[in-house]
């Protein structure tokens, strides 16, 4: 039972809402827990055992850490490392052992048996949540929770378990256990956000999927502008799909009065690669920052490296050198977190290089803008940055989606070697699974998304504005939105269902 299914939206959710509304306040979180486990059982069946294992282990380890006295730093560290090792190790085996062994087999004259594991849904997400909990208890930011049930809900909360956002215990625990009553505002705002998410996913993303799938599966047959458009279409699909599902998730949580952290902040308004990753999949970025980047940067060896580098290379370069090892670690992890494959590793390293260079070229960019007499806040510079970011992101996504690193390079090369502007007019584009009507809907949907993002960038909360309009107008808009999803959604006969893209990571 997926999020984007009638059974979930019209049967499961309403039933859970009803039960929640009828429950007394102190039992509401238990109801959410029960619903979450039922949901997960239906989704992953017996693989629920991994979720249970994760929950029980962090519960125990959290309590052990609580029991440690102030002076027992070594013991605390061992408990933390044990927990991290078990969780990351489990994820590593399930997700990466096949890739690792296959690569070994390819490089060495071996024929090691390659296991194939079915991944429990959401393991890449709840593992990170589990590790963040342990780390926060270790550092004393929170105390280990004594209640196994409450910790179980933190890991298993059904709207967020499949695709995140990756929640921190300190922020989300309160929200989950509060058992807030159902309110008219929460339900309407939550439902509106859910419809918006469904619009992005069903109308735009799933429609683009047909086009994208054709080009990336049969990549050898396409070149030039077609490949470029395919990569751009994938970028748009990924954004609409993932941010749409996140809207569905956050909206669902909002129905229950639970506030989850945002995962997107209009990423295509970014001006640098660094900024992009502060606006795209925000909770993943902050997780890497807090649990890999800072801890590594502040270890004695890296600090010593930094001091030496600053002495010999000067402040700016020295600072960059200090940042290199932890940043590399972050990007290798980020790339590989998305999947077990060389193209994912390449994706991570691609952004690593871009971010380091972006940092190094900061003063040069300043000087260039002075020479050209342009203001870095001005229109022309912004256009340059938007185009630059578009090129960077689309290129990255091309490699991300390609069926392997070799395919990625071939496709990228073919953009230039097989440049064929004629396809824009000779009808080729209409033979790749989408007709003119489809492109029209995609264009309209994209424009709506752009308008909404623009308003959000300006700090406008659309749902507040909507709530302030008069009833007929408000109802017309809501009705039109739901009908737009039902009518223009890319589902049903002739369409293959598209699993949420980030559910596979």
């Amino acid at each position, binding site marked *: *039972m*997926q999020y984007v*299914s*009638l*059974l979930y939206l*019209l*049967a499961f959710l309403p039933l859970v809402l009803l039960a929640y509304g009828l429950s007394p306040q102190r039992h509401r979180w238990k109801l959410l827990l029960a619903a979450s486990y039922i949901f997960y059982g*239906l989704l992953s069946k017996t693989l629920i055992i991994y979720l249970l294992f994760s929950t029980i282990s962090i519960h125990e380890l959290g309590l052990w850490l609580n029991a440690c006295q102030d002076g027992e730093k070594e013991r605390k560290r061992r408990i933390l490392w044990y927990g991290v090792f078990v969780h990351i190790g489990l994820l590593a085996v399930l997700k990466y052992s096949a890739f690792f062994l296959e690569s070994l087999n390819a490089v060495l004259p071996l024929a090691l048996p390659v296991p194939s594991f079915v991944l429990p849904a959401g393991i890449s997400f709840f593992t990170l949540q589990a590790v963040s909990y342990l780390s926060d208890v270790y550092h004393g930011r929170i105390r280990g929770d004594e209640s196994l049930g409450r910790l179980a809900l933190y890991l298993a909360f059904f709207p967020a378990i499949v695709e995140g956002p990756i929640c921190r215990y300190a922020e989300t625990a309160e929200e989950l256990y509060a058992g807030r009553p*159902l*309110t*008219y505002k929460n*339900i*309407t705002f939550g439902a509106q956000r859910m419809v918006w998410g469904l619009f992005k996913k069903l109308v735009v993303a799933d429609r683009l999927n047909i086009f994208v799938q054709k080009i990336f599966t049969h990549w050898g047959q396409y070149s030039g502008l077609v490949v470029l458009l395919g990569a751009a279409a994938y970028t748009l699909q990924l954004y609409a799909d993932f941010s749409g599902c996140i809207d569905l998730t956050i909206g669902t949580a909002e129905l229950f009065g639970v506030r989850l952290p945002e995962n997107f902040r209009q990423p295509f308004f970014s001006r640098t690669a660094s900024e992009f990753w502060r606006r795209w999949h925000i909770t993943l970025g902050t997780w890497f920052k807090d649990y890999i980047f800072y801890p590594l940067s502040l270890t004695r060896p890296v600090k010593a490296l930094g001091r030496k580098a600053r002495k010999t290379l000067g402040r700016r370069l020295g600072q960059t050198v200090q940042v290199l090892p932890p940043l590399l670690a972050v990007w290798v992890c980020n790339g590989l977190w998305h999947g077990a494959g060389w193209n994912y590793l390449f994706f991570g390293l691609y952004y690593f290089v871009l971010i380091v260079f972006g940092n190094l070229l900061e003063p040069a960019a300043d000087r260039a803008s002075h020479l050209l007499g342009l203001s870095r806040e001005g229109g022309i510079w912004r256009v340059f940055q938007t185009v630059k970011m578009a090129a960077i992101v689309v290129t990255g996504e091309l490699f991300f989606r390609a069926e392997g690193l070799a395919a990625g390079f071939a496709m990228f090369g073919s953009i230039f070697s097989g440049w064929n502007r004629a396809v824009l007019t000779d009808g080729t584009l209409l033979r790749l699974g989408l*007709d*003119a*009507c489809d492109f029209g809907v995609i264009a309209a949907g994209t424009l709506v998304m752009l308008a909404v993002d623009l308003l959000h960038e300006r700090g406008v909360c659309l749902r507040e504005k909507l709530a302030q309009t008069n009833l007929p107008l408000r*109802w017309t808009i*809501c*009705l039109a939105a*739901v*009908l737009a999803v*039902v*009518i*223009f*959604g890319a589902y*049903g*006969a*002739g369409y293959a269902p598209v699993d949420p893209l980030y559910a596979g990571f």
Partner: protein
Amino acid sequence: MKKKQWIRAAAFLALLAAAFALLSPVFTPKDELGNIQEEPANSLDYLAIGDSECYTSISPMQLWGDYGYVGYNCGLASQRIQDAYYRLKKTLECQTPRLVLLETNMLFRNKGVRQETVTGFDHAFGNLVGLYQYHNTWKSLFRQNRASGKAEWLKGLRYRPDCRPYTGGPYVEKTEKVQPVAAAQRFWLDRILALCRKKHIRLVLYTVPSPLCWSYAKHNGAEAYAKSHGLTLLDLNLQLDKVGIDWSKDTWDRGNHLNFSGAQKLTAYLGQWLREKGWLPDRRGEQAYAAWDREMALYLTGTGGTMQKAGGKGH
């Protein structure tokens, strides 16, 4: 939540439901049931329902030519029995057959409890809310209507003259094993049976010869249902000799479906079987069915004009 808010929420949902109800007929295509809608109302005496096994098996035109039986082949590729129920229900709004032949392959199309629940819910909603099922019709506002592509004189038969033989040898091995009709499918079969009983229609289960789709265990399952509900099961996998099926000539996809030659043999056998039962009237000569004679001529031209008899080793 305050009372006023409850009312407002309910009113909005009611409005939404009204919008669905209003738009559903707009989006439901006029020819949602296919060419059968071209037939005059209440003119057909039998219907055959099922999936692709059904639409490659019975040739209504051949039954007309040999026995004067009038009916339609309502098979639909990969049809789930749930959808067959709804289509039958809609068809019975304008037709009053005496006999419904149900091909049993649909009874075993089950993908596990979870999948069946999800799909079942989805299809139930779609069958109730035409807007959801046919929402893609919006495109036809911008496009010219594509031709339906299937000739009317085929009466629902899928005409496949090509041949790719089945070479797997004998496949009928008697066994006590039973593959029962699963609960989800039984639910809908019960409803089809109830619908037929209410409208005084005889329901007969039949199974098309298919080495790839059929198994003796499935036969046992279908037989069990038929016995417990007083229905006849005509399993042609157990009458291969009488029907005269030659697997080197009669299949177009290596034993998955029959081709036209196989359909002709099956139809000939079925026609004889029906004549022995005496359930259907011979409508040849009736003024109301003159069109069938005209269509017969088209059918003979369109299919190469040969008519096969059952057997091959004598009747």
